[in-house]
């Protein structure tokens, strides 16, 4: 299956999908040193986003969240790529400064955790096996 959307930040990545239907607030929600989701009540709580094709509807919360994505990248714990339904400022800016491939306008309902996927952000595409 191949889905096409919009390029937010170029780059290529391959890996396993980790998906949530909930928004993610990186500031306060994700540990910038470990890549573990720490937000109480979040369905990904306790899971690591490191190296994953992270699929979620949209980012939320403080604009400091952009710096958390940068911190994850510096610590080697960033997601391999981010796929959003609708990308907002915090995630877009975070991906650009951290150089994490990012696409949006994707029908994320068709993607499931555990699928193996390739993201080509330049072509705004995600392809699953």
């Amino acid at each position: 299956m191949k889905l096409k959307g919009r390029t937010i930040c170029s780059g290529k990545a391959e890996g396993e999908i980790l998906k949530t239907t909930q928004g993610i607030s990186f500031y306060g929600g994700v540990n910038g040193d470990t890549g573990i989701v720490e937000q109480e009540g979040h369905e990904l709580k306790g899971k690591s986003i490191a190296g994953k094709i992270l699929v979620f509807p949209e980012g939320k919360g403080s604009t400091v969240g952009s710096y958390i994505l940068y911190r994850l990248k510096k610590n080697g714990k960033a997601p391999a790529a981010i796929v959003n339904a609708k990308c907002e400022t915090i995630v877009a800016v975070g991906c650009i400064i951290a150089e994490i491939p990012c696409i949006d306008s994707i029908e994320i309902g068709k993607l499931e955790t555990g699928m193996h996927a390739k993201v080509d952000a330049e072509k705004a595409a995600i392809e699953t096996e």
Partner: protein
Amino acid sequence: MNLTKEEKEMLSGKHGNAVKKSMEILKALGEIYGAKKMISVSSVQIAGVSYDNLGEPGLEFLAEMAKDGKTRVLTTLNPAGMDMENWRALGIQEEFAEKQEKVINAFARMGVITTCTCTPYLIGNCPHFGEHIAWSESSAVAFANSVLGAYTNREGGPSALAAALTGKTPEYGMHLEKNRQAEVLVELEKPLRETQNFGALGKVVGEKIGNKIPLVVGQDKASLEELKSLSASIATYGGTAMFHMKGITPSKTKKPKEKILVKHSEIEEALAGLTAEGTSDFVSIGCPHASIKEIEKIAKLLEGKKVNKEVWITTARPTKKIADMMGYTKTIEEAGAKFAADTCCVVAPIKGRFNQITTDSAKGCFYAASKNKFKTRIKSIEECIKEACE
């Protein structure tokens, strides 16, 4: 987006890495929000200055940008996590101070004017009516759009920096006339006086209409300090980038259909809701940063008196210099109160140091409660100083 030849060159890396990264940020934002082109900005205000918020990754990012980034327009900074000169006296740890200095130095290398204040419009970064700018700091954004009539979106730290290093911002949102029209008519039962009441108004309106733009009617006059207070609280509690106030703010707007009434009892309830019983161990005035008029007032109130608790007057360093020159600083410090220039109670690392704060600021109360877990009391400046001396 349609980019000019120069903007394309910026994106290609011809103007260096910091400019390339900046243009990537601006282009992505422009595409997300449907901008057709970039526009030039004449002024920038950057938030994300306190090391308490930035942390090590934020500092690393700024150091990276400072390798070859230089500001192209007048750029000022939001408050830092400490008074850059007097941090020891305010109980800031050595290690924090060292990191904070590195943050400021990175901005300085880029040519940013390192006056750390949320009131850039009081210290020489004061755009005029109709000017396009790129500001972060929600209270300054609301003041600029509403009171000055300049045009700015609510920028985050990196996007404001990107605007500073390129002199550009994507044309969307508050840069377009059609998005600056009032959406809700807010009728005041009776006109308000004093900063704490304007703060309460911002809370009431913000909680009722969120980030919609109000047209407030029924206010006969307003001081700079009162509008500064309203700008801060309406952005904090509601998230709007702009308000109109009939007879006071300069921008034209159509009269909106949706209408709400703000009763005076609602203002009083908002104040009561922010005011705990009991004695505070901390008093702070200057959220947003105190103006010279407010400092003069505080100096007069403190003349010949002694404070009995920790009292911080938070302000911009250039404003403090005026206070020094006028002798207000001497009067205030002789009474035992302290100046905390360059910083404020929202961004300084003061969690755990106090239990309860008394302030005239509704925005100050919000962050004292949410970020620092303090109980709060909101009072007029006169009452704040009276409590400080009790």
